[in-house]
């Protein structure tokens, strides 16, 4: 096909949006709603996942050293621990700090501290946080192998619980996204079918005058793609506005932030590009394919 032919068909597709504006608007609305449904479910999942990971980050490995370890070795051990795979941060807990912590943790029978003289009996230690909470047991075991480490302990139950929670959230969110995607596809398919059905006679006329299937489909393809792009752009701006509002409300909740950790809710700026790409690509592809597939039935003339 000549360049002028391609230009003509592309123009036809764009003109058709205006000429069939009611059906184009219906397709736009259905695509917009579908994209918002699936996009919201995906964003919900991404944030839930991030919050669970935030919870996991608060699960730490308590490392206690042999009391006889000298201070030089303590300093070098901090670097050694930090070099272990999966270790995110290593905080030194001095004997004095450990003593204060112990006092704070014991609420009943605090009188016992009256009989203790000084804190030298306390070991130096480290609080180790990990990158991947799922591998906390393996990391704990590695730390325990260091000669100067008297004990290294973590709460595998917390890790296990969070792992299970993530699994359940992934399953539910996955099922929700798939269900919404299926519902969306049915809605989009019906709308594009209705849109094409209204123009079936036009397609038949084209067939009678000797138009090839490609010639007939191209304007529908362009029309569907452009409508899809607009729906994707609309969904992006709506998501942006709503997400920012929800983000502001949630980050103002101090309790929530303390529980899950600051930064566990992803700011929109961090995902803006991905959201925009998802909406525009999904809108364009679904719009274009929906239109083209719907024409198939009417092409057999």
């Amino acid at each position, binding site marked *: *096909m000549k360049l*002028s032919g391609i230009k003509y068909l592309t123009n036809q597709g764009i003109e058709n949006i205006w*000429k069939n504006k009611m059906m184009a608007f219906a397709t736009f609305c259905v695509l917009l709603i579908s994209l918002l449904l699936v996009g919201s479910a995906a964003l919900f999942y991404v944030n839930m996942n991030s919050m669970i990971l935030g919870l996991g980050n608060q699960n730490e490995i308590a490392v206690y050293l042999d009391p006889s370890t000298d201070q030089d070795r303590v300093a070098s051990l901090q670097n050694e621990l930090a070099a272990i795979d999966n270790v995110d941060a290593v905080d030194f807990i001095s004997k004095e700090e450990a003593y204060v912590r112990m006092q704070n943790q014991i609420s009943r029978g605090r009188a016992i501290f009256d009989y203790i003289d000084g804190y030298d009996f306390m070991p130096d230690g480290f609080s180790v946080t990990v990158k991947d909470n799922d591998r906390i047991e393996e990391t704990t075991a590695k730390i325990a192998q260091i000669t100067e480490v008297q004990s290294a302990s973590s709460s595998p139950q917390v890790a296990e619980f969070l792992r299970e929670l993530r699994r359940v959230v992934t399953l539910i969110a996955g099922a929700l996204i798939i269900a919404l995607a299926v519902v969306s596809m049915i809605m989009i398919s019906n709308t594009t079918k209705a849109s094409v059905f209204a123009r079936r006679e036009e397609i038949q006329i*084209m*067939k*009678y*005058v*000797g*138009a090839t299937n490609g*010639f007939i489909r191209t304007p529908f393809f362009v029309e569907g793609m452009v409508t899809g792009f607009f729906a994707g752009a609309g969904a992006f701006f709506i998501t942006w506005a709503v997400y920012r509002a929800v983000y502001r409300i949630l980050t103002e909740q101090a309790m929530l932030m303390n529980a899950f950790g600051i930064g566990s809710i992803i700011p929109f700026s961090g995902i803006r590009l991905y959201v925009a790409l998802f909406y525009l690509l999904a809108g364009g592809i679904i719009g274009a394919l929906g239109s083209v597939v719907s024409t198939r039935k009417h092409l057999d003339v």
Partner: protein
Amino acid sequence: MVELQNVSVTYSSGVDALNNVSLKINDGDFAFVVGSSGAGKSTMIKLLLKEIDATSGVVTVNGYNLNKLKKRKIPEFRRTLGFVFQDFRLIPSMTVYENIAFVLRVIDAPLKYIRKRVPYVISLVGLHAKTNSYPDELSGGEKQRVAIARALVNDPQLIIADEPTGNIDPELSYEIVELLKGINDQGTTILMVTHEHDLVRHFGGRIINITDGEIVFDEVITGTNDEPLPEEELAAAMAEAEQRSDTAQIPADAPPAAAPADAPVTSTEDALIDEVIAALTGENGGAE
């Protein structure tokens, strides 16, 4: 050129729409196809457009053997045809110019040619003033003239007109057929399906009557170009001819009732033809 050789069409429902039909329409011919509803006219049109396939027999149109025509070659074949529908079938969202130019767009004609050719065919059908009008803004007759211009624009070898006067005023029907006749004079083969016996009688030419899936009459008659023959009279003559063709028991040596005693009668079929033509033309045995 259109040629049907022993063509039969049986639908999946078991209905025999065409039964062993043979027909040849040469280049440059103008033929009327007449017949009652359900006689098989639409099936024949569908066959000629390669919308359906023959159950048996051979269909050849413009040099294409439609029995062997691959699906991907159908668009190429259809570009050798022009088609005029009873209900005009213009694309409502396109102007008169765009509806006609569209056919040339389909064949990827150069823009320069389109800009020259489309106004020319629009002027041929006398719609220059309506070039930028939309179909909704046109009368029935004007719409049909646009449809004819569309059928004509890519200079087809054959134009098939399916009841082109069915949705327009009777007086405009004559204009439409005149237009088609004019196109035919330029060498384009025209096959026109119609119910309107007045038109057939008025213009004359080759008449093919299909009844119950069979061709019961295929002859050239002279047009009267005068007052229309009463509908009942023509219908009665057609019906009688069809009935006789079913039985076809007239002895070869017996002259037909409407034919003069000295008319040369060669066969039963000739007798029937003479009889119908006599009714159509108002003459006694005026067959060509």
